[in-house]
């Protein structure tokens, strides 16, 4: 399969750089992500079995195509290609009906299958064009290698542009807005016992930081700290709580707060392995008693402040090293970091 793609893009024999490798991977991924219906030609030129070989000449020439499906009362009964036409011309048989020369054993692909299916079929059968049928075997389009190349290029351009624009806008936030103290605040309400959505907020925060131009390692550290803090609200709080992240050019402040039950012995809570997680939470793999320890490893400063009956506040702070400051992604801007 990767052979087919290499063939298609002519990369064989070239030294492949990291960037190329990334692109190849994306192309290969697209071969699985894109459906045949996303890239096929829908405007199909077809003929009927009773049409003559002359009609084939005219159709292929006018539309600059190398073959066409043959349809009888809405069903696909064959394909007629340049090779079939050559045979008719060699016999000097232009007025013969198409059914005399057409190929009846039609190989088709399904519109809902991934593009890689069509690539495999091209490689296996060596045909250049395939009729595309839907789940009811109705002809809905035609696909060639050219259609696939075009579809893949369009998709690459599209996701590249979308992510670039998002990253460009986000990464310029701190440069474009001039103030004595610029900060971006992200706030999430976390529900008690909501295991199903647990980790959602931290995943959003990690992505936001990456878009803001944060180095991946920094985004990962924040992701871990926020994940553990988020899960503690879900597992240990009475009524859930609030997660707040404040992104500034030189530091990131992360904070959770809830209104109970509070921690009787904060020092004990910070001991590795100490956990009061419920049996249900433990059965799901929570309650290792390592959450707060994990947070401490990831942040420069952590403060746990709790009063029984009133609630818990957890403050986490990461100072950005000079090489960690938010920068625009390469190529997005001429102006250096904030």
């Amino acid at each position, binding site marked *: 399969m*990767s052979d087919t793609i290499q063939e298609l893009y002519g990369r064989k024999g070239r030294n492949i750089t990291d960037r190329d490798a990334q692109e190849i991977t994306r192309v290969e*991924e697209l071969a699985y992500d894109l459906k045949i219906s996303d890239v096929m030609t829908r405007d199909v030129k077809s003929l009927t079995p009773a049409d003559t070989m002359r009609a084939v000449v005219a159709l292929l020439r006018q539309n600059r195509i190398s073959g066409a499906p043959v349809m009888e009362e809405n069903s696909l009964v064959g394909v007629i290609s340049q090779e079939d036409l050559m045979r008719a011309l060699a016999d000097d048989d232009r007025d013969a009906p198409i059914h005399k020369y057409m190929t009846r054993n039609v190989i088709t692909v399904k519109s809902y299958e991934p593009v890689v299916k069509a690539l495999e079929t091209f490689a296996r059968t060596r045909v250049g064009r395939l009729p595309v049928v839907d789940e009811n075997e109705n002809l809905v389009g035609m696909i060639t290698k050219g259609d696939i190349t075009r579809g893949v290029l369009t998709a690459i351009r599209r996701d590249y542009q979308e992510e670039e624009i998002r990253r460009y806008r986000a990464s310029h936030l701190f440069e474009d807005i001039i103030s004595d103290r610029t900060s971006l605040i992200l706030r999430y309400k976390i529900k008690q016992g909501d295991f199903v959505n647990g*980790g959602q907020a931290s995943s959003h925060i990690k992505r936001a930081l990456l878009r803001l131009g944060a180095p991946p390692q920094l985004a990962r550290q924040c992701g871990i700290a926020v994940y553990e803090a988020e899960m503690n609200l879900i597992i240990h709080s009475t009524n859930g709580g609030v997660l707040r992240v404040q992104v500034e050019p030189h530091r990131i402040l992360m904070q959770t707060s809830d209104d109970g039950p509070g921690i009787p012995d904060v020092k004990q809570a910070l001991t590795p392995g100490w956990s009061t997680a419920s049996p249900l939470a433990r059965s*799901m793999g929570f309650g290792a008693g390592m959450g707060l320890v994990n947070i401490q*490893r990831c942040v420069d400063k952590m403060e746990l402040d709790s009063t029984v009956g009133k609630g818990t506040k957890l403050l986490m702070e990461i100072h950005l090293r000079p090489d960690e400051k938010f920068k625009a992604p390469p190529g997005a801007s001429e102006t250096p970091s904030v």
Partner: protein
Amino acid sequence: MTLQDIIAGLNLKVLTSLRNFNAVTPQGGYASDLLSCVVAGAQPGNLWITLQAHMNVVAVASLREVSAVIITENAQPGPEVVEKANDQGVVLLSTERPSYEIVGKLWEMGVR
């Protein structure tokens, strides 16, 4: 050793949607059912071997950027878990074998 080789070699079932597993080369692995340990111990690109199969597995897998999760002893994630994994680009694989055996085989195959 690509993820495709591992899937074939261990006869794993692919629960999430098909991707080009030839393009993924897992770097080592981490085995635990305790999520905070995985958060602390798993490295990006690792395989994660666990018998947990609930929603938060996807969150942790995506947080740690593991190359795939191998769910052992036939633990079955619900359809909403698989859907979430597909959304987040997390690969879920499954086997009826226990974690101990899978880890041993992976080690033998040279995934270290």
